[in-house]
């Protein structure tokens, strides 16, 4: 709590946003144990497009049903659960991958990561074995043996002679190339095209969303790392003899990742609206999957049923606004 006070002490709206997000996540967490009268995916065919009712007799549809007969309240809860199980892990995954890739690209650039040739030989041998290319039995054993010999030869008395046999891994070009590749087509178009096959499982969709979301984080961290890399404290760490990898992980990366505190909520908001748009168009998921987007899509069949659009639409909008407010509060807080 002490951590949040500087963020929200003077911002009632920020506190409200946080409260809403906590509510949504709490509903998502306890969703399996909530005593709801209806389940989200099973339609109640006797009451199609029923308006919200609070009748005391029998289990009522408190927020009404959609034109397929599905309970809107149960759909809302299922949507919150999906947010927690799909969008949040995807963003966390994308942020971690983007931070590591962008941080490495910014720190080592194209020239500075010099690997001994032995590493390349070893990697080639392992790849040869894993892909089972022709002749892999002999070739990969030879390659790995060479690599081991070369590593053994870095034994101090021999090392100076072998130091020149190294190559630079163009990390920066690789990461930037990958972000350019994924940026060549709008994210929604790429998502629709890749989801065109048979219905995706939740895990596949999560991986797909993470793949689409990491380039933004990577670009941000890379730019930040380019500034952090030339700071005096990095130079001091190098002068004190720390190994490069340790300087990168313990000293440079935490500083380069600071803007992510404000960026990740925005990234999550973008991903939620992307996922909802996909569900709204209705591609790539089985018909039994209920989310806010798919619930919103059904209102087109019966425009008079305003309650079908109002509840999930408001929930989605509040969540996105709360995430934006959270990002703004974090960016404005004096600690940041």
């Amino acid at each position, binding site marked *: 709590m002490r951590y949040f006070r500087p963020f929200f002490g003077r911002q009632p709206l920020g506190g409200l946003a946080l409260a809403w997000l906590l509510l949504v996540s709490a509903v998502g967490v306890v969703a399996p144990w909530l005593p709801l009268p209806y389940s989200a995916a099973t339609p109640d065919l006797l009451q199609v497009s029923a308006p919200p009712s609070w009748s005391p007799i029998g289990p009522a549809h408190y927020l009404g049903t959609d034109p397929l007969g599905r309970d809107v309240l149960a759909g809302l809860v299922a949507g919150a659960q999906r947010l927690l199980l799909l969008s949040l892990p995807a963003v966390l995954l994308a942020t971690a991958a983007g931070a590591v890739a962008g941080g490495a690209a910014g720190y080592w650039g194209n020239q500075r990561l010099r690997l001994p040739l032995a590493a390349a030989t070893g990697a080639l041998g392992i790849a040869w074995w894993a892909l*089972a290319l022709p002749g892999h039995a002999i070739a990969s054993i030879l390659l790995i043996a060479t690599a081991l010999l070369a590593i053994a030869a870095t034994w101090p008395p021999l090392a100076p002679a072998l130091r020149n046999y190294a190559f630079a891994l163009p990390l920066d070009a690789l990461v930037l190339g990958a972000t350019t*590749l994924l940026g060549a087509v*709008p994210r*929604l178009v790429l998502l629709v095209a890749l989801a*065109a096959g048979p219905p995706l499982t939740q895990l596949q969709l999560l991986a797909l969303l993470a793949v689409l979301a990491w380039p933004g984080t990577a670009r941000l961290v890379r730019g930040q790392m380019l500034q952090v890399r030339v700071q005096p404290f990095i130079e001091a760490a190098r002068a004190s003899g720390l190994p490069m990898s340790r300087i990168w992980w313990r000293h440079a990366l935490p500083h380069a990742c600071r803007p992510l505190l404000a960026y990740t909520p925005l990234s999550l908001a973008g991903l939620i609206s992307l996922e909802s748009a996909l569900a709204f168009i209705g591609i790539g998921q089985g018909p039994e999957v209920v989310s806010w*987007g798919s619930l919103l899509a059904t209102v087109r069949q019966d*425009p*008079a049923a305003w309650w079908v659009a109002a509840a999930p639409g408001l929930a989605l909008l509040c969540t996105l606004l709360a995430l934006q407010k959270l990002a703004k509060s974090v960016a404005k807080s004096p600690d940041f």
Partner: protein
Amino acid sequence: MMRWLLARLGRAVAAAWLIASLVFISSRLLGGGPEQLALGDSSDLSRPAAGARSAATRQAAQQVVRHRLGLDMPVFYVTREAGPPVRWQWHGAANQYHRWVMALLHGNLGYSYRDGQAVGAMLWQAVAFSLPLAGSAAVVAVGLALGLGLYLAQAPGGRLRRLLLGLLAGWQVMPLFLLALSLLLLFANPDFLNILPGSGQPPANASGPTLAGYWLARSVLPLLSLVLAVLPELTLPLVAMLRHEVRAGYATTARAKGLTAAQVLRRHALPNALLPLLTTLADLLPTLVAGTVVVEVLFGLPGSGRLLAEAAAAHDYPVVVAAVLLSAAARLLGLVLTDILYFLADPRLRPSA
């Protein structure tokens, strides 16, 4: 300068090519569709009594369809056959990817799995609808953003201005589909305001001008949603830049020599504030292309976005790959236009200078 531009364009073309190839290969590896599609899903519902016989005939029919569509060929130049022992095989030019590339270089985008139409013709027909929509949305949005930005930059710092800025900032996270859906439910709803036609069929006996008028009325709401969706991201940076420029020394000089605030803003601050905004403009076209997917599905317009969505829903891979290529081309166009605008806006960047 030219070389830098060409290198940039070359990279963009290569990225577009690679991403289309990735989509092509992943779609072919995923399978799951074309032959069932061509046979019709009704075969799944055949009588259980005929099950044993129909399984064999179905398999044979699928084989015929696969052969006709060229799907019985290997996907790529090299394939890996799973199972012990793993074998790698080189197929030379007789593979699906090579044939796709060769056809593409001859301007042939392939044929739809659904009805065998040429994809190029389908896409052309759809683009003829989507391009005016996205193009006019871009023009209207840029014009509105300029007007709104100039107004907000010189408006007194009162409550209205704060309200407008706050509204725009909140608007920014509003997903396009939610925006378009609310517009549809508000203005094309038989139970609420039924001002504009939202979806459905054109009047049966409509001739040239009536039909054009009908489609024009149909396009109002989609256009409005697209414009409103991209307006905040164009306006907010412009306002920030303008307010920054107005505080610069040259603006003080301009005011000191007696120009009005509006003149200073329009003639002196605006050209400098526009330059960083051109980067946003490069992203505008791809954003609108993604927006047409949502808007055309929702409003039932026969454009390229709906073509992509319907093809994706029906596993019609040739159309999907072609639509990906098309949106990559839209991005390329955006890049080229932005570079031209940069040259026009900033004399220092011109090749002759």
